[in-house]
Protein backbone atom coordinates (compact mmCIF):
# COMPACT_ATOMS: atom_id res chain seq x y z
CA UNK A 1 0.00 0.00 0.00
CA UNK A 2 2.83 2.32 0.83
CA UNK A 3 4.39 1.93 -2.58
CA UNK A 4 1.10 2.65 -4.27
CA UNK A 5 0.89 6.04 -2.57
CA UNK A 6 4.38 6.89 -3.61
CA UNK A 7 3.72 5.98 -7.23
CA UNK A 8 0.44 7.79 -7.47
CA UNK A 9 1.70 11.19 -6.51
CA UNK A 10 4.86 13.20 -6.53
CA UNK A 11 3.51 15.48 -3.83
CA UNK A 12 4.90 14.58 -0.43
CA UNK A 13 3.25 17.42 1.44
CA UNK A 14 -0.04 19.08 0.58
CA UNK A 15 -1.47 21.77 2.84
CA UNK A 16 -4.81 23.34 1.99
CA UNK A 17 -6.12 26.32 3.94
CA UNK A 18 -4.41 25.06 7.04
CA UNK A 19 -5.37 27.12 10.10
CA UNK A 20 -4.63 26.87 13.81
CA UNK A 21 -6.25 29.09 16.40
CA UNK A 22 -5.45 29.31 20.10
CA UNK A 23 -8.45 31.09 21.59
CA UNK A 24 -8.77 34.36 19.71
CA UNK A 25 -5.22 34.17 18.40
CA UNK A 26 -4.71 32.79 14.89
CA UNK A 27 -1.22 31.33 14.93
CA UNK A 28 -1.43 29.85 11.43
CA UNK A 29 -3.80 31.64 9.10
CA UNK A 30 -5.07 29.72 6.10
CA UNK A 31 -1.85 28.53 4.50
CA UNK A 32 -1.72 26.40 1.35
CA UNK A 33 1.30 24.89 -0.39
CA UNK A 34 2.68 21.70 -1.88
CA UNK A 35 6.10 20.08 -1.61
CA UNK A 36 7.40 17.74 -4.32
CA UNK A 37 9.25 14.50 -3.74
CA UNK A 38 13.01 15.05 -3.36
CA UNK A 39 12.65 18.78 -2.96
CA UNK A 40 14.47 20.93 -0.37
CA UNK A 41 11.76 23.22 0.93
CA UNK A 42 12.87 26.15 3.09
CA UNK A 43 10.29 27.31 5.60
CA UNK A 44 11.25 30.79 6.75
CA UNK A 45 9.68 33.41 8.95
CA UNK A 46 10.37 35.74 11.83
CA UNK A 47 10.16 34.52 15.45
CA UNK A 48 6.48 34.14 16.27
CA UNK A 49 5.34 34.04 12.62
CA UNK A 50 3.79 30.60 13.15
CA UNK A 51 6.45 28.27 11.72
CA UNK A 52 6.62 25.93 14.69
CA UNK A 53 2.83 25.64 14.93
CA UNK A 54 2.60 24.84 11.22
CA UNK A 55 5.40 22.30 11.49
CA UNK A 56 3.72 20.62 14.50
CA UNK A 57 0.53 20.18 12.48
CA UNK A 58 2.43 18.64 9.55
CA UNK A 59 4.14 16.21 11.94
CA UNK A 60 0.80 15.03 13.35
CA UNK A 61 1.47 16.58 16.77
CA UNK A 62 -1.22 19.24 16.64
CA UNK A 63 -4.66 19.01 15.02
CA UNK A 64 -5.60 21.88 12.67
CA UNK A 65 -8.54 24.10 13.64
CA UNK A 66 -9.57 24.03 9.98
CA UNK A 67 -8.15 23.11 6.62
CA UNK A 68 -6.55 19.86 5.51
CA UNK A 69 -3.12 18.43 5.03
CA UNK A 70 -1.55 15.30 3.59
CA UNK A 71 1.96 14.23 4.53
CA UNK A 72 3.44 11.19 2.76
CA UNK A 73 -0.10 10.43 1.61
CA UNK A 74 -1.64 10.42 5.10
CA UNK A 75 -4.17 12.80 6.56
CA UNK A 76 -2.67 14.96 9.29
CA UNK A 77 -5.98 15.06 11.15
CA UNK A 78 -7.11 11.42 11.14
CA UNK A 79 -3.95 9.42 10.43
CA UNK A 80 -1.47 11.08 12.76
CA UNK A 81 0.23 7.80 13.76
CA UNK A 82 0.83 6.88 10.12
CA UNK A 83 2.15 10.39 9.48
CA UNK A 84 4.61 10.06 12.36
CA UNK A 85 5.85 6.70 11.03
CA UNK A 86 6.62 8.14 7.61
CA UNK A 87 8.56 11.20 8.66
CA UNK A 88 11.87 12.00 10.31
CA UNK A 89 12.42 14.92 12.66
CA UNK A 90 15.42 16.74 13.98
CA UNK A 91 15.84 19.99 15.85
CA UNK A 92 18.72 21.85 17.38
CA UNK A 93 17.17 21.46 20.83
CA UNK A 94 16.26 17.80 20.91
CA UNK A 95 18.02 15.26 18.84
CA UNK A 96 19.78 12.37 20.55
CA UNK A 97 20.28 11.03 24.07
CA UNK A 98 23.57 12.32 25.50
CA UNK A 99 23.97 9.43 27.93
CA UNK A 100 23.58 6.71 25.33
CA UNK A 101 26.41 5.61 23.06
CA UNK A 102 26.38 6.39 19.36
CA UNK A 103 25.29 2.86 18.37
CA UNK A 104 22.73 2.73 21.20
CA UNK A 105 21.05 5.89 19.94
CA UNK A 106 20.86 4.47 16.44
CA UNK A 107 19.45 1.17 17.71
CA UNK A 108 16.90 2.97 19.87
CA UNK A 109 15.56 5.18 17.09
CA UNK A 110 15.70 2.38 14.49
CA UNK A 111 13.72 0.20 16.91
CA UNK A 112 11.14 2.89 17.61
CA UNK A 113 10.51 3.18 13.87
CA UNK A 114 10.01 -0.59 13.66
CA UNK A 115 13.17 -1.54 11.80
CA UNK A 116 14.39 -5.15 12.06
CA UNK A 117 17.50 -5.85 14.18
CA UNK A 118 19.46 -7.16 11.23
CA UNK A 119 18.62 -4.15 9.08
CA UNK A 120 19.67 -1.83 11.92
CA UNK A 121 22.99 -3.63 12.23
CA UNK A 122 23.83 -3.55 8.53
CA UNK A 123 22.80 0.07 8.13
CA UNK A 124 24.70 1.12 11.27
CA UNK A 125 27.93 -0.30 9.85
CA UNK A 126 27.25 1.51 6.60
CA UNK A 127 26.51 4.81 8.31
CA UNK A 128 29.61 4.70 10.51
CA UNK A 129 31.70 4.29 7.36
CA UNK A 130 30.01 7.11 5.46
CA UNK A 131 30.34 9.52 8.37
CA UNK A 132 33.87 8.37 9.16
CA UNK A 133 32.61 7.64 12.67
CA UNK A 134 34.00 4.14 13.21
CA UNK A 135 36.09 5.26 16.19
CA UNK A 136 33.15 7.06 17.77
CA UNK A 137 30.74 4.13 17.64
CA UNK A 138 31.15 3.23 21.33
CA UNK A 139 31.39 6.79 22.64
CA UNK A 140 28.67 8.54 24.60
CA UNK A 141 26.90 11.06 22.39
CA UNK A 142 27.31 13.67 25.13
CA UNK A 143 31.09 13.52 24.73
CA UNK A 144 31.02 14.37 20.99
CA UNK A 145 31.63 17.89 19.65
CA UNK A 146 28.47 19.70 18.56
CA UNK A 147 29.27 19.42 14.85
CA UNK A 148 29.54 15.60 15.13
CA UNK A 149 26.32 15.45 17.10
CA UNK A 150 24.35 17.43 14.55
CA UNK A 151 25.60 15.30 11.66
CA UNK A 152 24.77 12.15 13.59
CA UNK A 153 21.35 13.48 14.61
CA UNK A 154 20.49 14.17 10.99
CA UNK A 155 21.65 10.73 9.89
CA UNK A 156 19.55 9.14 12.64
CA UNK A 157 16.50 11.17 11.61
CA UNK A 158 16.65 9.65 8.12
CA UNK A 159 17.88 6.21 9.25
CA UNK A 160 14.46 4.62 8.68
CA UNK A 161 14.29 6.19 5.18
CA UNK A 162 11.30 8.43 5.82
CA UNK A 163 9.47 10.07 2.91
CA UNK A 164 10.17 13.47 4.37
CA UNK A 165 12.39 14.83 7.09
CA UNK A 166 11.55 17.95 9.10
CA UNK A 167 14.60 19.94 10.22
CA UNK A 168 13.99 22.72 12.74
CA UNK A 169 17.00 25.07 12.74
CA UNK A 170 19.42 22.17 12.37
CA UNK A 171 22.58 24.28 12.04
CA UNK A 172 22.15 26.84 14.83
CA UNK A 173 25.46 27.53 16.61
CA UNK A 174 27.47 25.16 14.43
CA UNK A 175 30.84 26.34 13.03
CA UNK A 176 30.85 27.52 9.40
CA UNK A 177 32.67 24.52 7.96
CA UNK A 178 30.48 21.95 9.74
CA UNK A 179 27.42 23.94 8.68
CA UNK A 180 28.42 23.49 5.05
CA UNK A 181 29.20 19.78 5.52
CA UNK A 182 25.74 19.44 7.04
CA UNK A 183 24.17 20.84 3.88
CA UNK A 184 26.13 18.36 1.82
CA UNK A 185 24.45 15.59 3.86
CA UNK A 186 21.10 17.19 3.06
CA UNK A 187 21.86 17.18 -0.69
CA UNK A 188 22.89 13.56 -0.41
CA UNK A 189 19.58 12.66 1.28
CA UNK A 190 17.54 14.34 -1.46
CA UNK A 191 19.48 12.43 -4.09
CA UNK A 192 18.04 9.29 -2.43
CA UNK A 193 14.52 10.67 -2.86
CA UNK A 194 14.03 11.97 0.68
CA UNK A 195 12.18 15.25 0.82
CA UNK A 196 13.59 17.93 3.13
CA UNK A 197 11.51 20.51 4.96
CA UNK A 198 13.83 22.89 6.77
CA UNK A 199 13.70 26.07 8.87
CA UNK A 200 16.74 28.28 9.35
CA UNK A 201 17.77 31.76 10.44
CA UNK A 202 20.84 31.70 8.18
CA UNK A 203 19.79 33.47 5.02
CA UNK A 204 22.67 32.04 2.98
CA UNK A 205 21.14 28.62 3.67
CA UNK A 206 17.84 29.80 2.19
CA UNK A 207 19.72 30.03 -1.11
CA UNK A 208 20.46 26.28 -0.98
CA UNK A 209 16.75 25.41 -1.02
CA UNK A 210 14.86 24.55 -4.20
CA UNK A 211 11.93 26.63 -3.04
CA UNK A 212 11.39 28.90 -0.07
CA UNK A 213 8.26 30.09 1.69
CA UNK A 214 8.28 33.11 3.96
CA UNK A 215 5.67 33.37 6.71
CA UNK A 216 4.58 36.70 8.14
CA UNK A 217 1.97 36.89 10.91
CA UNK A 218 0.66 33.37 10.30
CA UNK A 219 0.32 33.67 6.52
CA UNK A 220 2.62 32.65 3.68
CA UNK A 221 3.56 35.94 2.06
CA UNK A 222 5.93 34.60 -0.56
CA UNK A 223 6.71 31.21 -2.07
CA UNK A 224 9.06 30.53 -4.95
CA UNK A 225 12.61 29.56 -5.85
CA UNK A 226 15.27 31.83 -4.29
CA UNK A 227 16.10 33.08 -7.79
CA UNK A 228 12.53 34.13 -8.56
CA UNK A 229 12.00 35.65 -5.12
CA UNK A 230 15.06 37.84 -5.56
CA UNK A 231 13.75 38.93 -8.96
CA UNK A 232 10.27 39.58 -7.61
CA UNK A 233 11.53 41.73 -4.72
CA UNK A 234 14.36 43.39 -6.68
CA UNK A 235 16.82 42.09 -4.10
CA UNK A 236 20.42 40.89 -4.32
CA UNK A 237 20.13 38.30 -1.59
CA UNK A 238 17.55 36.27 0.31
CA UNK A 239 18.42 38.36 3.35
CA UNK A 240 17.07 41.45 1.58
CA UNK A 241 13.92 39.58 0.54
CA UNK A 242 13.40 38.47 4.13
CA UNK A 243 14.01 41.94 5.55
CA UNK A 244 11.46 43.46 3.16
CA UNK A 245 8.78 40.92 4.02
CA UNK A 246 9.30 40.52 7.74
CA UNK A 247 9.18 44.25 8.32
CA UNK A 248 5.54 44.13 7.21
CA UNK A 249 4.73 42.22 10.37
CA UNK A 250 2.15 43.90 12.57
CA UNK A 251 1.96 41.05 15.04
CA UNK A 252 2.77 42.70 18.35
CA UNK A 253 3.31 39.45 20.18
CA UNK A 254 6.86 39.42 18.90
Amino acid sequence: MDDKIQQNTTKVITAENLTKKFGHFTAVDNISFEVERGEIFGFLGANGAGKTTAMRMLCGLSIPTSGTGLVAGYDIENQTELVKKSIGYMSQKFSLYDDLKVWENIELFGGIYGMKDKEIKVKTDELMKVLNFENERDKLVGSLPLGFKQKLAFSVSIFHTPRVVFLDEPTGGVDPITRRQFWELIYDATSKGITVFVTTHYMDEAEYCDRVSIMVDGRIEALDSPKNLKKQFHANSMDEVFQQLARKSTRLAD
Partner: protein
Amino acid sequence: MNAIEVKNISKNYFPKESGKFVGIGERSILQNGSNLNSPLGVGGISFDVKRGEIFGLIGPDGAGKTTIFRILTTLLLPDQGTASVDGFDVVADYKEIRNRVGYMPGRFSLYQDLTVEENLNFFATVFNTTIEENYELVKDIYQQIEPFKKRRAGKLSGGMKQKLALCCALIHKPSVLFLDEPTTGVDPVSRKEFWGMLKKLKEQGITILVSTPYMDEASQCDRIALIQNGEFLKIDTPDTIIEQYRNKLWAVKSDSMYKLLTDLRANEQTKNCFAFGDKHHVSIDNIQLTISGLKELLEKKGHLNIDIKEIEPTIEDCFMQLIQG
Protein backbone atom coordinates in the same frame (compact mmCIF):
# COMPACT_ATOMS: atom_id res chain seq x y z
CA MET B 1 42.58 51.76 32.38
CA ASN B 2 40.80 49.26 30.17
CA ALA B 3 37.26 48.21 31.01
CA ILE B 4 38.27 44.56 30.84
CA GLU B 5 41.74 43.06 31.12
CA VAL B 6 42.37 39.35 30.79
CA LYS B 7 45.85 37.87 31.21
CA ASN B 8 46.83 34.25 30.67
CA ILE B 9 43.52 32.81 31.76
CA SER B 10 42.84 29.11 31.43
CA LYS B 11 40.15 26.83 32.74
CA ASN B 12 39.93 23.05 32.46
CA TYR B 13 36.63 21.46 33.46
CA PHE B 14 38.37 18.12 33.94
CA PRO B 15 40.52 17.54 37.05
CA LYS B 16 44.26 17.95 36.41
CA GLU B 17 44.99 14.29 37.13
CA SER B 18 42.65 13.12 34.37
CA GLY B 19 45.00 14.31 31.63
CA LYS B 20 41.94 15.42 29.66
CA PHE B 21 41.07 18.95 28.68
CA VAL B 22 37.78 20.71 28.06
CA GLY B 23 37.75 24.45 28.58
CA ILE B 24 39.75 27.44 27.43
CA GLY B 25 43.46 28.16 26.93
CA GLU B 26 44.91 24.67 26.60
CA ARG B 27 46.90 24.95 23.39
CA SER B 28 48.52 28.26 24.21
CA ILE B 29 49.69 26.83 27.53
CA LEU B 30 51.38 23.97 25.76
CA GLN B 31 52.84 26.27 23.11
CA ASN B 32 54.48 28.37 25.76
CA GLY B 33 56.52 25.44 26.97
CA SER B 34 54.47 24.87 30.06
CA ASN B 35 52.12 21.96 30.58
CA LEU B 36 48.76 21.09 32.03
CA ASN B 37 50.14 19.97 35.35
CA SER B 38 52.25 23.02 36.06
CA PRO B 39 50.70 24.97 38.92
CA LEU B 40 51.27 28.44 37.51
CA GLY B 41 52.34 28.14 33.91
CA VAL B 42 52.17 31.05 31.51
CA GLY B 43 49.98 30.87 28.45
CA GLY B 44 46.23 30.78 28.49
CA ILE B 45 44.22 33.44 26.74
CA SER B 46 44.64 37.21 27.01
CA PHE B 47 42.73 40.22 25.71
CA ASP B 48 41.68 43.77 26.64
CA VAL B 49 38.47 45.64 26.06
CA LYS B 50 38.69 49.42 25.96
CA ARG B 51 36.20 51.64 27.71
CA GLY B 52 33.14 52.29 25.55
CA GLU B 53 34.03 49.56 23.06
CA ILE B 54 31.75 46.90 21.62
CA PHE B 55 33.93 43.80 21.68
CA GLY B 56 32.64 40.61 20.05
CA LEU B 57 33.55 37.01 20.84
CA ILE B 58 32.75 35.21 17.61
CA GLY B 59 32.75 31.44 17.37
CA PRO B 60 30.62 28.28 17.31
CA ASP B 61 28.99 26.49 20.25
CA GLY B 62 31.56 24.83 22.47
CA ALA B 63 34.32 27.31 21.57
CA GLY B 64 34.58 28.61 25.15
CA LYS B 65 32.64 31.87 24.90
CA THR B 66 30.43 31.20 27.92
CA THR B 67 33.42 30.15 30.04
CA ILE B 68 34.99 33.57 29.45
CA PHE B 69 31.72 35.28 30.42
CA ARG B 70 31.40 33.25 33.58
CA ILE B 71 34.95 34.02 34.69
CA LEU B 72 34.53 37.76 34.04
CA THR B 73 31.18 37.92 35.84
CA THR B 74 32.81 36.17 38.85
CA LEU B 75 30.68 33.03 38.56
CA LEU B 76 33.59 30.72 37.81
CA LEU B 77 37.18 30.69 39.05
CA PRO B 78 39.93 30.39 36.45
CA ASP B 79 42.61 27.72 37.00
CA GLN B 80 45.30 30.29 36.31
CA GLY B 81 45.77 33.83 35.09
CA THR B 82 44.22 37.09 36.19
CA ALA B 83 41.37 39.21 34.97
CA SER B 84 39.89 42.53 35.96
CA VAL B 85 36.68 44.35 35.15
CA ASP B 86 36.57 48.10 35.68
CA GLY B 87 39.91 47.77 37.49
CA PHE B 88 38.60 45.22 39.99
CA ASP B 89 40.03 41.73 40.25
CA VAL B 90 37.55 38.98 39.35
CA VAL B 91 38.60 36.86 42.33
CA ALA B 92 39.48 39.30 45.12
CA ASP B 93 36.92 42.01 44.33
CA TYR B 94 34.06 39.86 43.14
CA LYS B 95 31.46 41.70 45.19
CA GLU B 96 32.40 45.04 43.68
CA ILE B 97 32.23 43.61 40.16
CA ARG B 98 28.79 42.13 40.74
CA ASN B 99 27.49 45.59 41.61
CA ARG B 100 28.91 47.17 38.50
CA VAL B 101 28.22 44.80 35.64
CA GLY B 102 25.11 43.74 33.79
CA TYR B 103 24.92 40.13 32.59
CA MET B 104 22.54 38.56 30.15
CA PRO B 105 23.25 34.83 30.11
CA GLY B 106 22.69 32.71 27.01
CA ARG B 107 19.79 30.87 28.56
CA PHE B 108 16.70 32.92 29.49
CA SER B 109 17.13 33.40 33.24
CA LEU B 110 14.35 35.68 34.36
CA TYR B 111 11.52 34.57 36.60
CA GLN B 112 8.92 32.97 34.33
CA ASP B 113 6.18 33.35 36.93
CA LEU B 114 6.70 37.06 37.44
CA THR B 115 5.26 39.60 35.02
CA VAL B 116 7.38 41.83 32.80
CA GLU B 117 7.03 44.70 35.23
CA GLU B 118 7.66 42.54 38.31
CA ASN B 119 10.87 41.14 36.83
CA LEU B 120 12.23 44.59 36.07
CA ASN B 121 11.22 45.84 39.50
CA PHE B 122 12.85 42.85 41.14
CA PHE B 123 16.20 43.40 39.45
CA ALA B 124 16.10 47.13 40.24
CA THR B 125 15.43 46.35 43.92
CA VAL B 126 18.22 43.78 44.16
CA PHE B 127 20.64 46.50 43.03
CA ASN B 128 19.22 49.05 45.46
CA THR B 129 17.72 51.22 42.79
CA THR B 130 14.34 51.88 41.18
CA ILE B 131 12.97 51.67 37.66
CA GLU B 132 12.36 55.42 37.75
CA GLU B 133 15.95 56.26 38.60
CA ASN B 134 17.44 54.69 35.46
CA TYR B 135 14.37 54.75 33.24
CA GLU B 136 16.13 56.90 30.60
CA LEU B 137 18.64 54.15 29.92
CA VAL B 138 16.09 51.41 29.25
CA LYS B 139 13.29 53.62 27.92
CA ASP B 140 13.74 52.91 24.19
CA ILE B 141 13.80 49.18 24.72
CA TYR B 142 11.25 48.98 27.52
CA GLN B 143 8.64 50.96 25.57
CA GLN B 144 8.53 48.16 23.01
CA ILE B 145 7.42 45.65 25.64
CA GLU B 146 5.47 48.01 27.86
CA PRO B 147 2.08 47.07 26.31
CA PHE B 148 2.67 43.61 27.81
CA LYS B 149 3.93 44.66 31.23
CA LYS B 150 1.24 42.63 33.01
CA ARG B 151 2.13 39.46 31.10
CA ARG B 152 4.18 36.73 32.77
CA ALA B 153 7.71 36.49 31.41
CA GLY B 154 7.23 32.78 30.64
CA LYS B 155 4.41 33.67 28.24
CA LEU B 156 6.46 36.11 26.15
CA SER B 157 7.71 35.34 22.65
CA GLY B 158 11.45 34.93 22.01
CA GLY B 159 12.01 38.48 20.78
CA MET B 160 10.22 40.02 23.75
CA LYS B 161 12.03 37.84 26.29
CA GLN B 162 15.29 39.05 24.81
CA LYS B 163 14.26 42.70 25.18
CA LEU B 164 13.10 42.19 28.76
CA ALA B 165 16.34 40.40 29.67
CA LEU B 166 18.33 43.31 28.26
CA CYS B 167 16.27 45.79 30.29
CA CYS B 168 16.84 43.76 33.47
CA ALA B 169 20.60 43.65 32.80
CA LEU B 170 20.63 47.45 32.37
CA ILE B 171 18.34 48.68 35.12
CA HIS B 172 21.15 49.36 37.62
CA LYS B 173 23.13 51.33 35.02
CA PRO B 174 26.11 48.97 34.73
CA SER B 175 29.43 50.24 33.42
CA VAL B 176 30.15 47.00 31.58
CA LEU B 177 27.50 44.89 29.91
CA PHE B 178 28.03 41.16 29.27
CA LEU B 179 25.76 39.65 26.62
CA ASP B 180 26.16 35.94 25.99
CA GLU B 181 24.66 35.05 22.60
CA PRO B 182 21.79 37.53 22.78
CA THR B 183 20.79 36.93 19.15
CA THR B 184 20.98 33.14 18.91
CA GLY B 185 17.82 31.71 17.39
CA VAL B 186 16.53 35.20 16.70
CA ASP B 187 15.34 36.03 13.16
CA PRO B 188 17.42 38.34 10.94
CA VAL B 189 15.09 41.35 11.32
CA SER B 190 15.02 41.24 15.13
CA ARG B 191 18.79 40.68 15.12
CA LYS B 192 19.35 43.91 13.21
CA GLU B 193 17.12 45.78 15.65
CA PHE B 194 19.03 44.35 18.58
CA TRP B 195 22.37 45.59 17.25
CA GLY B 196 20.80 49.00 16.78
CA MET B 197 19.96 49.01 20.50
CA LEU B 198 23.54 48.08 21.40
CA LYS B 199 24.91 50.98 19.34
CA LYS B 200 22.72 53.37 21.34
CA LEU B 201 23.99 51.92 24.63
CA LYS B 202 27.55 52.36 23.45
CA GLU B 203 26.81 56.05 22.81
CA GLN B 204 25.88 56.31 26.48
CA GLY B 205 29.36 55.13 27.39
CA ILE B 206 28.59 51.54 28.31
CA THR B 207 31.28 48.97 27.45
CA ILE B 208 29.83 45.85 25.85
CA LEU B 209 31.29 42.35 25.61
CA VAL B 210 29.00 40.32 23.36
CA SER B 211 29.25 36.83 21.89
CA THR B 212 27.60 35.42 18.79
CA PRO B 213 27.81 32.38 16.54
CA TYR B 214 26.60 34.51 13.57
CA MET B 215 29.69 35.60 11.65
CA ASP B 216 27.77 38.31 9.79
CA GLU B 217 27.35 40.20 13.07
CA ALA B 218 31.12 40.67 13.43
CA SER B 219 31.07 43.92 11.45
CA GLN B 220 28.81 45.47 14.09
CA CYS B 221 31.63 45.28 16.66
CA ASP B 222 34.55 47.68 17.11
CA ARG B 223 36.90 44.75 17.65
CA ILE B 224 36.40 41.02 17.63
CA ALA B 225 38.08 37.85 18.82
CA LEU B 226 37.55 34.80 16.62
CA ILE B 227 37.41 31.79 18.92
CA GLN B 228 37.41 28.03 18.33
CA ASN B 229 38.13 25.10 20.66
CA GLY B 230 38.97 27.34 23.60
CA GLU B 231 41.59 29.39 21.75
CA PHE B 232 41.64 32.77 20.05
CA LEU B 233 42.41 32.54 16.36
CA LYS B 234 42.69 36.31 16.01
CA ILE B 235 41.91 39.55 17.84
CA ASP B 236 41.54 42.73 15.81
CA THR B 237 39.10 45.09 14.12
CA PRO B 238 36.87 43.33 11.56
CA ASP B 239 38.41 45.43 8.75
CA THR B 240 41.98 44.48 9.66
CA ILE B 241 41.10 40.80 9.84
CA ILE B 242 39.59 41.04 6.38
CA GLU B 243 42.68 42.85 5.02
CA GLN B 244 44.85 40.03 6.33
CA TYR B 245 43.07 37.36 4.28
CA ARG B 246 45.88 35.62 2.49
CA ASN B 247 44.53 34.49 -0.87
CA LYS B 248 42.63 35.77 -3.86
CA LEU B 249 38.96 35.16 -3.32
CA TRP B 250 36.49 34.68 -6.14
CA ALA B 251 32.74 34.19 -6.13
CA VAL B 252 31.75 31.66 -8.77
CA LYS B 253 28.38 30.75 -10.25
CA SER B 254 27.18 28.43 -12.98
CA ASP B 255 24.00 26.61 -13.97
CA SER B 256 24.96 23.48 -12.06
CA MET B 257 26.05 24.55 -8.60
CA TYR B 258 26.56 21.13 -6.99
CA LYS B 259 28.78 19.90 -9.83
CA LEU B 260 30.58 23.24 -9.72
CA LEU B 261 31.50 22.66 -6.08
CA THR B 262 33.08 19.28 -6.85
CA ASP B 263 34.82 20.57 -9.97
CA LEU B 264 36.26 23.58 -8.17
CA ARG B 265 37.51 21.42 -5.33
CA ALA B 266 39.13 19.02 -7.78
CA ASN B 267 41.03 21.90 -9.38
CA GLU B 268 44.66 21.91 -8.23
CA GLN B 269 44.89 25.67 -7.93
CA THR B 270 41.98 25.85 -5.52
CA LYS B 271 43.02 26.23 -1.90
CA ASN B 272 39.51 25.69 -0.69
CA CYS B 273 35.98 26.15 -1.89
CA PHE B 274 32.77 26.60 0.07
CA ALA B 275 29.14 27.24 -0.80
CA PHE B 276 28.09 30.78 0.11
CA GLY B 277 24.42 31.34 -0.57
CA ASP B 278 23.85 31.36 -4.33
CA LYS B 279 27.60 31.45 -5.09
CA HIS B 280 30.69 29.43 -4.23
CA HIS B 281 33.65 31.21 -2.69
CA VAL B 282 36.95 29.89 -4.04
CA SER B 283 40.27 30.91 -2.61
CA ILE B 284 43.09 30.63 -5.10
CA ASP B 285 46.67 29.90 -4.15
CA ASN B 286 48.21 30.45 -7.55
CA ILE B 287 48.68 34.13 -8.35
CA GLN B 288 49.12 33.34 -12.05
CA LEU B 289 45.62 31.95 -12.47
CA THR B 290 43.30 34.61 -13.86
CA ILE B 291 39.53 34.83 -13.84
CA SER B 292 39.40 34.08 -17.55
CA GLY B 293 41.76 31.16 -16.98
CA LEU B 294 39.41 29.60 -14.45
CA LYS B 295 36.44 30.31 -16.69
CA GLU B 296 38.10 28.41 -19.50
CA LEU B 297 38.80 25.47 -17.20
CA LEU B 298 35.18 25.34 -16.12
CA GLU B 299 33.88 25.64 -19.68
CA LYS B 300 35.92 22.58 -20.54
CA LYS B 301 34.11 20.73 -17.75
CA GLY B 302 30.81 21.61 -19.43
CA HIS B 303 29.60 24.47 -17.21
CA LEU B 304 27.20 27.01 -18.69
CA ASN B 305 26.54 30.62 -17.71
CA ILE B 306 29.71 30.87 -15.66
CA ASP B 307 30.10 34.05 -13.65
CA ILE B 308 33.30 34.76 -11.70
CA LYS B 309 33.98 37.90 -9.70
CA GLU B 310 36.80 38.92 -7.40
CA ILE B 311 35.31 39.73 -4.00
CA GLU B 312 36.31 41.02 -0.60
CA PRO B 313 36.28 38.23 1.98
CA THR B 314 33.70 38.18 4.76
CA ILE B 315 34.56 37.40 8.37
CA GLU B 316 33.17 33.93 7.73
CA ASP B 317 35.72 33.39 4.92
CA CYS B 318 38.47 34.55 7.30
CA PHE B 319 37.26 32.27 10.08
CA MET B 320 37.26 29.25 7.78
CA GLN B 321 40.74 30.07 6.49
CA LEU B 322 41.99 30.37 10.06
CA ILE B 323 40.53 27.09 11.30
CA GLN B 324 41.88 25.28 8.28
CA GLY B 325 45.34 26.56 9.19
